[in-house]
């Protein structure tokens, strides 16, 4: 288990955020700090509000109450993320992947990554139509960078295949490469391991750690697979019914009766008894049955 690489700088500062849809409270007074360089995992049962949290962080939803301050890259001045458009937040240095993979299926793997890379480029339609030198240079740069990213996620050999023709696990990795293409300070991964096999999960864990260590990207992770979460996360936050019920290191969380109760649907008292006997793998098997937290 790797040691936290945290610098103590806050990347995301979420305070008292409440998000409602009609009468349904999706997030209830959530407080959360994410520090630069750490891998923070958000876990919780289905419907706990994990994806709502992600969507609030990336500007898809606008919470009714609370503040979200963002300073994605080192040296950034914190700005409010509330009310900003998704693409603006992306430009502030936040990239994400989706729970149900959302690639551009009719583009090749390389083109998918290039789309990400090129959102940081400048050449406009006229330059493109006339093939001006700057546009050519940018085109070359974006191809090189996209290739470099594909290589780092192990997809270089499949660069010219259509995204839709890649295997499931490959699509997951391609989505990460595309997100990295936008040169983020924070990357939000929404259940990256869903639907992958154990070998792929191991590769994925390595990839997440590599992204975090080598690129210095902070990682916010939603994941059901406890084994993966426990192996890569520096810190965990547990949500249930839109509320934060626990926060701490993997070891602390595993022993937290409130968390076990949330997962098993029992009371905290019963759960605290269980904690003594149940192993982590037990929880794992119980939890890994479902996916689909929209």
């Amino acid at each position: 288990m790797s040691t936290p690489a945290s610098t103590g700088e806050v990347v995301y500062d979420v305070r008292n955020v409440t998000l409602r849809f009609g009468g349904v409270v999706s997030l209830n007074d959530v407080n959360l700090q994410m520090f630069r360089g750490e891998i923070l995992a958000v876990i919780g049962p289905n419907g706990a509000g994990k994806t709502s949290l992600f969507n609030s962080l990336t500007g898809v939803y606008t919470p009714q109450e609370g503040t979200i301050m963002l300073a994605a890259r080192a040296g950034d001045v914190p700005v409010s993320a509330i009310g900003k458009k998704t693409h603006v937040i992306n430009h502030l240095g936040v990239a994400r992947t989706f729970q149900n993979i959302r690639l551009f299926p009719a583009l090749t793997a390389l083109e998918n990554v290039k789309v990400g890379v090129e959102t940081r480029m400048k050449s406009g339609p006229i330059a493109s139509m006339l093939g001006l030198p700057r546009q050519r240079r940018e085109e070359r740069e974006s191809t090189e960078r996209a290739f470099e990213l594909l290589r780092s996620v192990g997809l270089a050999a499949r660069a010219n295949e259509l995204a839709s023709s890649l295997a499931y696990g490959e699509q997951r990795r391609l989505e990460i490469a595309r997100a990295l293409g936008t040169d983020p300070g924070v990357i939000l991964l929404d259940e990256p391991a869903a639907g992958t096999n154990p070998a792929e999960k191991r590769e994925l864990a390595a990839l997440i750690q590599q992204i975090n260590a080598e690129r210095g990207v902070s990682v916010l992770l939603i994941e059901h697979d406890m084994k993966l979460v426990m192996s890569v996360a520096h810190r965990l936050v547990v949500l249930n019914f839109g509320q934060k019920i626990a926060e701490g290191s993997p070891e602390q969380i595993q022993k937290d009766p409130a968390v076990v109760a949330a997962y098993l649907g029992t009371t905290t008292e019963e759960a605290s008894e269980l904690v003594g006997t149940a192993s982590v793998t037990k929880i794992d098997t119980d939890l890994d049955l479902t996916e689909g937290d929209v």
Partner: protein
Amino acid sequence: MSTYTDVTKGGGQSRRSDAAEARIALAKRFAGCMFLAFVLALMIGTQEGTQDDFGYAFRKSVFAPRIGIFALIGVAVFLAVTFWPRIVPYLSRAGVRPLAAGALTVVVSFTLLNWTDSTDLNNGKFGGLRPAAAQTGGIDPVARLFFGSAFSLTPWLLLLIVVALVAAAIRFEDSSTLGYVGGGLAIVFGIWAQYAQSAVRSFLDYPDHSTGAGVALLGFVTIGVSGIVVARSHGKADSGGFFQRVYDWRPGMPLVALGAVVGLVGLFSAAWFSPTDRNAGIGLTSTMFHGTGLSGFSAAYLAWLAYVLFFATLILAGAASYLRHHLLGWVAAGLGVVSLLVTLYVMHDFSGLAAQSKFDGATGAWDNLGTGGWMLCGALTVLAGAGYLVARHEQVEVPDAAPGVSSDAALAAGSKLGPALLVVIIASALFFPPTATQFWQTVLVTEIGIYVLLAIGLNVVVGWAGLLDLGFIAFYAIGSYTTAYLTGRLPVKPPSFLELTPLAAIPFAIVICLVAGVLLGAPTLRLRGDYLAIVTLGFGEIIRVVANNSTPVTNGSRGAFNIPPPEIHIGPLDIKWGDNVLGYWYLLLVFVVIVVLLFNRLEHSRLGRAWAAIREDEVAAQATGINTVRVKLLAFAIGASTSGVAGVYFASQIGSFTPENFILNNSILVVAYVVFGGMGSLPGAMAGAAVLTWLPEFLRDQVPAEDRQMWIGAVILLMMIFRPAGLIPARRRRAELGGLDKKDSSETTAVPAGEGM
């Protein structure tokens, strides 16, 4: 039609016995076929009734014995569909497809096409020419024999013989002799047809733009090729594989063969000089202009140089292709281009001379030319292209997609026939229109060309960015009105310093359309799919109604008129377009080529990929940092400005327009063209527009004028049923369709998603 659904139904949930299910499916299919026959009977039936005799045509159409014939057709279709699975394996055999295509081509030339321009003989169709030629004693007996002086069905018999021979060769897979014999005979018959027609033509002394004989030749040659394919494949591969092998073997060869055929016909069969009362081949032209003051060079060209140049180019190109010799390729290409220029010079020379003496009402050079010179030009272009391809061949073949190579280029390299096809398209775009009749030239410049330009523009919006725009014609209107305003043909006059010639109005039209596109787009682009469609539709209608109602500004329903034709005065360049239709064609060609080149770059640029991204998944595109509103606005504005250019061209070419030209129906039609051709594919959109604007004009002679729209509707419907991705699907779109098939072919996912387009 409806039968298709039954064929593919497969896997119903009900657990009836298989036999019973098969019987029900068969019954359904039969009902479908009979329904089809019934509809066909209505479509081909008598014209409408009147107020007093409502349903007259309906009764006439469905009563015996007519309906009986159509019932038989229905049964035939039923049998064909039922036994289709048994036919399919044969279809993939080598040679079958070219055989079918060739036979069909010959049948088309015998039934639909003109064999002479004379309208006296049954509108110049084969059916009218054949008996006339067969009975006229003055015509060469060999030609008469073809038309049936001995046996009236001769031409059909010839077709039957070669088809039977090649078919037999296919049936008995190892008989290469039969294939060679059939193929060889077919080519001989093709030349015979060409010869026979040229004999009749010189007898009739009519100027000739007919294509019947040429197409027949083409059909027979195709049959001939199929015979050779059969002979050489020994039942091993399919025809496509064979062609691919030929292409891999000697890349320039197909082009050389095509160039040879066209060039030979141009030199030895077609007319070079063709005023209203004669058709002079190159030899006769040479004699006619002997001693008329034609320059020595041109005289020499007509007498012998033409042959030397053509055969030299042919042999060089052939040798270069065969030897795959780069240097020879360059030499062939160079010689081809030189010969082409020389040919054009000579054509200008002698037609100019004829025009000087006001020969047969000619008003200038290029009048009264026959088809021969243009055909030779086309052939030389093709040969030069072949040489160029050979010269560039190895360089094009980049070793596997290495890092740094644009993925699009790598994918495009998959199509090896692409460049050859491009050469053929260039040659026909340049030299085919001059050989067409005035009618087709007019159609080309007033309809086909304009709508191709519009389709290219709309393809950006609909095909690439995935925004359904039902008011596209509004920008076309804005372009047209801008031109009318700037040339001072509206009730409101421009300030004098702004009074411009039409071509100078183009930048203004582009800017105004860009602004209009942004103004419309800015508030509405956050709307999705169908909401955007109705808003753009409304915008189109608003523009038209405002134009129609604002009489003091736009001259209302009477529209603008007397808009001057385009002209260019830049330094030594001084061109004024007037009545010569062909001039407009080349102007239009310049526009289209520029736009295509620019847009082709755009498609494979950052912006092109961003469009694809928002089209595929807007949410993901946003999360990846794409400013979707800006990107959509760009699509809108770029599409609009193309439309504006088309509007300028339209206004100054036709010279007058009314608000009626910008009705909603036209917007819908352009969308139909783009989708018909293949959304998101530049060649597709162009082909779609070209085919669907060509079709009604073609149908002019085939069906009652009133019914043309009905047939076009049917064609669009059939296309969408059987080839929903369009005529030439875009690579990216094809992938979408393919992806859907692969992921899940169950019925439920086929229900389109609610989002986006």
